[in-house]
């Protein structure tokens, strides 16, 4: 653990001698919280989660307690709980650590959540590429079943719930909760329109469903262990608990770091925990919350007022690591994935890479996203192929503006935001890129044709 970290979820991960088997987990106090939980009333679990203020760690940051409260309990239909383990937002690799190194923590968090919401059947939707991860979870589930932590009449409570590991098959859109639900139903993962298809009301099999991220469900265990109000003392109001940040790109020590919300800044994360940039390199930009979040330029300044009225005046490195601060800086913390780019980065190339991703992953349901993402990809691909034009910056922005807000799910925004922010913040670089290429083309054409 690096100085400045506060490891709650990752307390045991990477510790010498700590294995992913149930004995390691139980020796470290594992499943004691589940025992406590089944002695509580289900509604008490829900109110502790509400009191904790815990926000979803998958990307949107929506309060988990609120999500649970929306469950339609009057319908009489079975309730389903789904763990979103389809970790696929570029830059994110935190859930992988829990699945591969501490699967029982997730299972305990899920069974507590299942009991609290009175779930009839629970699922872990894991990305298809995590072959080993799925096997690890299956094994852990059988270990837990043997000890009656899941399955029939859990710990004599009279409550029963099974847990199914469901593997995806390589589609990013399955990370969108309603797409994920369609995928479990055995269909193409076309996201559903909201309203009316809010999962808490009309979710899996048109029944009330909760979809929570791996990290969020693990936090539930710690909320119940400590009590919601006690847990809420970690972090700051509205930004409670710890968060796991996945740092990649041009830093000396990329990796995952668990930090109390608001206790450190992006600058401290990059320079202290991650050992700073490579020798001789300067920071060019940060993508602060997964590749769909708006890019931050190294020399930007952000001023304004926070929700609580506090004024702020930040450089990029001063932005606190929480939910609300990146939002105040016009971007988002998303899935906590920080991608660092130094001054060797070709910014047009980086956007071309991102555009190719979102074009590949558009499900094709909504015209603006299906067509627009492809056009964005084509324009930046042409630019890096040597045919950039000065007007491309405006063209890209215009396409992105026509996608945002016009699609069923947030894939439209995920496609548009990188483009809008790259053009806004690196406009000169896009234009310079085109001018340079134009000059090169001109010089090439001016050369006398070689005599055959």
């Amino acid at each position, binding site marked *: 653990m690096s100085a400045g970290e506060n490891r709650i979820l990752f307390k045991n991960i990477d510790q010498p001698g700590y294995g992913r088997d149930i004995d390691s987990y139980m020796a470290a106090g594992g499943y004691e919280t589940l025992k406590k939980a089944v002695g509580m009333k289900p509604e008490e679990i829900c109110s502790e989660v509400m009191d904790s203020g815990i926000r979803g760690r998958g990307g949107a940051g929506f309060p988990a307690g609120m999500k649970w409260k929306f469950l339609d309990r009057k319908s009489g239909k*079975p309730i389903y709980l789904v763990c979103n383990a389809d*970790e*696929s*937002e*570029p*830059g*994110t*690799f935190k*859930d*992988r650590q829990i699945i591969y190194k501490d699967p029982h923590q997730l299972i305990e968090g899920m069974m507590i959540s299942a009991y609290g919401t009175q779930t009839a*059947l629970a699922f872990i939707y894991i*990305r*298809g*590429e*995590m*072959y*080993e991860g799925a096997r690890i979870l299956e094994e852990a589930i059988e270990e837990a079943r043997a000890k009656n932590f899941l399955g029939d009449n859990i710990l004599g409570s009279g409550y029963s719930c*099974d847990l*199914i590991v*469901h*593997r*995806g*098959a*390589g*589609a*990013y859109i399955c990370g969108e909760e309603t797409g994920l639900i369609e*995928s*479990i*139903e*055995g*269909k*193409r*993962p076309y996201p559903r329109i909201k309203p009316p298809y809010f999962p808490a009301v009309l979710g899996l*099999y048109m029944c009330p469903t909760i979809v929570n991220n791996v990290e969020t469900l693990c936090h539930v265990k710690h909320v119940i262990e400590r009590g919601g109000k006690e847990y809420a003392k970690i972090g700051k109001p509205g930004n409670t608990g710890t968060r796991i940040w*996945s*740092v*990649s*790109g*041009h830093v000396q020590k*990329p*990796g*995952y770091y668990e930090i109390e919300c608001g206790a450190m800044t992006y600058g401290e994360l990059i320079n202290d925990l991650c050992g700073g940039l490579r020798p001789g390199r300067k920071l060019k930009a940060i*993508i602060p919350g997964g*590749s769909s979040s708006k890019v931050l330029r190294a020399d930007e300044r952000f001023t304004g007022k926070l929700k609580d009225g506090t004024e702020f005046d930040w450089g990029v490195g001063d932005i606190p690591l929480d939910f609300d601060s990146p939002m105040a800086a016009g971007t988002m913390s998303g899935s906590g*994935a920080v*991608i660092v*780019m130094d001054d060797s*980065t070709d910014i047009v*190339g*980086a956007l071309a*890479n*991102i555009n*190719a*991703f979102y074009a*590949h*992953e558009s*499900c094709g349901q909504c015209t603006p996203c299906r067509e627009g993402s492809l056009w964005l990809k084509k324009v930046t691909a042409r630019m890096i192929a040597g045919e950039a034009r000065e007007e491309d910056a405006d063209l890209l922005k215009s396409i992105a503006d026509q996608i945002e807000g016009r699609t069923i799910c947030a894939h439209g925004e995920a496609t548009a935001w990188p483009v809008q922010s790259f053009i806004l913040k690196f406009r000169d670089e896009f234009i310079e890129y085109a001018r340079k290429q134009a000059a090169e083309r001109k010089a090439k054409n001016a050369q006398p044709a070689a005599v055959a």
Partner: protein
Amino acid sequence: MSQTTETAEPFALSPEILAKIDKIVPRYPSKRSATLPLLHLIQDEKGFISQQAAEWVAERLELEPIKVLEVVTFYPMFQQKPIGRRHVKVCRTLSCALNGGAQICQKFKDAFNVDLNETSKDGEVTVEYVECIASCGTAPVVQIDETLHENVTEERADQLIEEIRANAKQAS
């Protein structure tokens, strides 16, 4: 004009897979939910999902064949044609690209003399560019079949290429 009648080999699965399928289907509240698990099992055994395989799944789950086909054609992991015995998947996305993923991909393409999504002449290796596989902190990464290889430097790529070649020689 006489024409030889081509009889397609009847589609059959091993008893082990059939037993697994019989266990999986009833776990779900709806049979259709077993589509992805069944396709994974069949691809593991056959290497790809043929038209016959999709029809078999449809019949097993009491679905119209199109409902399985639309799934097979959507999800990138399902192969509709046979691919190489070894499947090299190099991550293409940003964090890997910032750390030299393209050069690593080129090395694999050169070593097996293939373009992207092509299979080497001996049918041994298919090289594919895939999107982010959630291991950005150890970029660049390459997944060969089911195994993830992290921090793949050029030297490490050479080793992996040699391992694939040695394995192919042993197999033949």
